[in-house]
């Protein structure tokens, strides 16, 4: 276990007191320290939203980019430098709304990135509008009479899309969350951790989660069984927390890429083509 201080930023989070995202931040630091990954080997990408402010609050490399786009940014980073541990931290609006297509395709390609979605079922930073995971009937600034729209189930959708690691965490249980993050980092390829992280200002789901949650650890659930994971994901009376599904059967995109592209050299070492390469390439242009 590395010293947690290593990951300490000098910026105080701007989150509201009580915001779930504090728990996610703590769990993430803990997981990195536990796996003994030094800060300079960690890359965190985020989008825009309260949750996406996270990279400023943890001392690693960060990319606080555009709303909905942290996944492709992370993918580019990982492909260019597979030595980095690449993590995405973002909100439900970011990842399940505007950025969902990137998430789905990164999952099916099995890019070796770990995505932690701080799901508060609301658009926090824009002051409380309907998000893709907002419940039917939920009153928000854009559904003053209660929403008529069915929410998206990110877990069943990602399972359907071929994600190789799917879990659900809760910011109120940073210990379990940390261990899920550790498992995700150790996993061979893409990982999604949908993390319930209540917004105490616009849509507080602490009570709901606490009332309905239970942990998968110790239950009969077999996390290598896709159908059973799918069934769990559809559960709505209760909220299962933990690892839904994992398979190590598929190599990650980056593994396959490294096999495929034979002559990879460190990308930061840009140089002209070699004489042999030039000869071979130019032969086709004559």
């Amino acid at each position, binding site marked *: 276990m590395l010293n947690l201080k290593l990951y300490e930023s000098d910026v105080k989070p701007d989150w509201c007191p009580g915001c779930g995202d504090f728990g996610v931040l703590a769990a993430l630091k803990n997981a990195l320290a536990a796996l003994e990954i030094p800060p300079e080997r960690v890359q965190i990408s985020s989008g825009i939203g309260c949750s996406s402010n996270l990279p400023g609050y943890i001392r*690693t490399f960060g990319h606080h980019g555009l709303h909905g786009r942290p996944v492709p940014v992370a993918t580019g980073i990982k492909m*260019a*430098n597979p030595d*980095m541990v690449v993590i995405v931290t973002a909100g439900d609006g970011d990842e399940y709304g505007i950025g969902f297509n990137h998430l789905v395709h990164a999952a099916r390609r099995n890019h070796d990135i770990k995505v932690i979605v701080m799901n508060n079922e609301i658009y926090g930073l824009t002051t409380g509008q309907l998000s893709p995971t907002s419940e039917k009937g939920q009153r928000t600034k854009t559904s003053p009479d209660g929403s008529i729209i069915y929410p998206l189930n990110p877990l069943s959708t990602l399972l359907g899309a071929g994600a190789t690691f799917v879990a659900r965490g809760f910011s109120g249980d940073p210990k379990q969350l940390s261990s899920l993050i550790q498992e995700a980092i150790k996993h061979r390829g893409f990982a999604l951790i949908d993390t319930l992280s209540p917004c105490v200002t616009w849509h507080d789901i602490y009570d709901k989660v606490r009332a309905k949650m239970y942990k998968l650890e110790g239950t009969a659930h077999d996390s290598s069984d896709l159908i059973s994971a799918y069934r769990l994901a559809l559960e709505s009376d209760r909220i299962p927390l933990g690892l839904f599904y994992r398979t190590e059967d598929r190599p990650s995109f980056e593994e396959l890429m490294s096999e495929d592209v034979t*002559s*990879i050299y460190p990308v930061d070492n840009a140089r002209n083509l070699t004489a042999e390469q030039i000869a071979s390439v130019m032969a086709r242009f004559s």
Partner: protein
Amino acid sequence: MSTNHTRADLTLRLGAAAGDGIQSAGEIMMKTLSRSGAYVSTYNGNQSLIRGGHVWFHIHAGEMPVYSLGYGIDYLIALTQLAYDEHYSEVNSGGVVIYDSSQVKAHDFPNGVNSIDAPLVKTALKYDKRPIMKNTVALGLLGGLLGLKFEVIADTIGEQFAKKPDVQESNVAAAREGYTFAEQHAPETMRRIKFDYTVKRSIMHAGYAVALGAVNAGCRFYAAYPMSPASPIVHWMTANARELGIRVFLGEDEIGVVNATIGASFAGARAMCATSGGGFSLMQEAIGQAAMTETPLVVVDVMRAGPSTGLPTKTSQGDLNMVLGISHDDFPRAIIAPRSPEDAYYLAGRAFNLAERYQIPVIILLDFAIGDGGYATIDELDFNTLIDRGKLVREVTKDMTNGVWFKRYSLTEDGVSPRALPGTAGAMYVAKTDEHDEWGHDLSDVEAGLRTAIQMREKQHVKRMSKLKGVASEMRPPELYGPDKADLTLVSWGSSALPIREAIPVLKSSGFSVNSLEFFDIFPLSADARSMLRGASRLLNVEQNITAQFAKYLRRETGIEIKENLLKYNGEPIYPAEVVDAVKNALKHEEMKQLA
């Protein structure tokens, strides 16, 4: 059409239906000509469909460098009635029309045009149940007429069918029948050029050239979503990925593509992506992101005729306004428009140096005409090109950090802050799209609106924009083509320079004194551009869009209004003859005025 001129060149056109293999035949002829010592320049008149319709392939070949489509048609192969109907009227006096009367009714011949009715289909049917080799027979015939060595034709055909040995031989045999037919039926007078089988030159189009230039400059990450006419770049990249070590990201859309490119560049790769206008529109938000996070980025936009889906396989220079106004609010960028494949090769490499030196997005504007639609002979390339990665910090010193973060956005005189790559010990920082201070801390939340934050915002905004001074100092003025002094100066940007180059000697031989200012470094404008424009006695702007975007841009930047324009916006390339006509009209009109 029959503009006479004295150059030792000739033009060939092959017309047929899509799926008839006319592009392949055209490429074989182009290679054969090049391998026989001719300079070539080609144009691919294709359509946004896979089979049927009408497509044509045009070759301009010469003993001296050729740049665009030349004048009229010296040799027309019309495999279909439509090809005949569409093209016969452009055949030059002394030219030849080759057709097969079993397929095509030759209803009309312009004055002085020869015709050859050849049994293309009948011959082709000897080799296959379907007459698919009719284009090969025609090819052989054409080679015979031109006086090319048959071995060169045969070799090139053999190469083309290398992966299909079963039809390799029969194609060569079919071509030979055409060749022999030509020897027997060649008309007396035909335009011919001299061949020289000792020289070796390369041919490529600007799509491949930009890819090659990028990779030679160290680009090892390429991302794309297919889009005509940018697709050849991704085809080349994937075909060479293994051998050259290129990591290719095939995104779910152009937004994913450009963001992955930015990620790769942020991580230290020289990274590039390409698309056409529609895809570029989708990339705009992310290009603003790269400018704000000061991540180097090279994006290629291969322009096609729009707006919207428009004409996917037709050419245009209509995207200038778009790239001048990418995304919201001001940020620094550079815009470069290569004129030719050679330009594309060198400017691609330079684009990476600019992008990294100034940590800005660099946009390369190509167009269908040179980017996908046309191959051209290029001079020998220099592969020993400069790679300058700018202020890249490999080791962090004390003054660069506060013990926690790396001072990524330090205020510097030239506006460029030292950059470190993920993985570098002690160099942790957060790249920010929110306005930020020198440490990459947000100015948009708890600090926003506070006096100090307001001042820092101003400084960071000014810092970013001030990089344009450095960029401007590297921007090259337009290149002058033709005589130093002239009665009329043509102004062009990007590929429009090429037909002008072919018009100038013709105009000269008709007694018109014309030169041309070829712009390729577009934004920021070189400081010398204004005086060069002012120095001209009269200006005529040539570009391929309906509103004269470049002329308007020049007016915005220099105050100089160019009142005469040759604007083409129907998707077809500019023909040198159109430039000739425009200049003659302008100058004649002037003479008339002077006489009156």
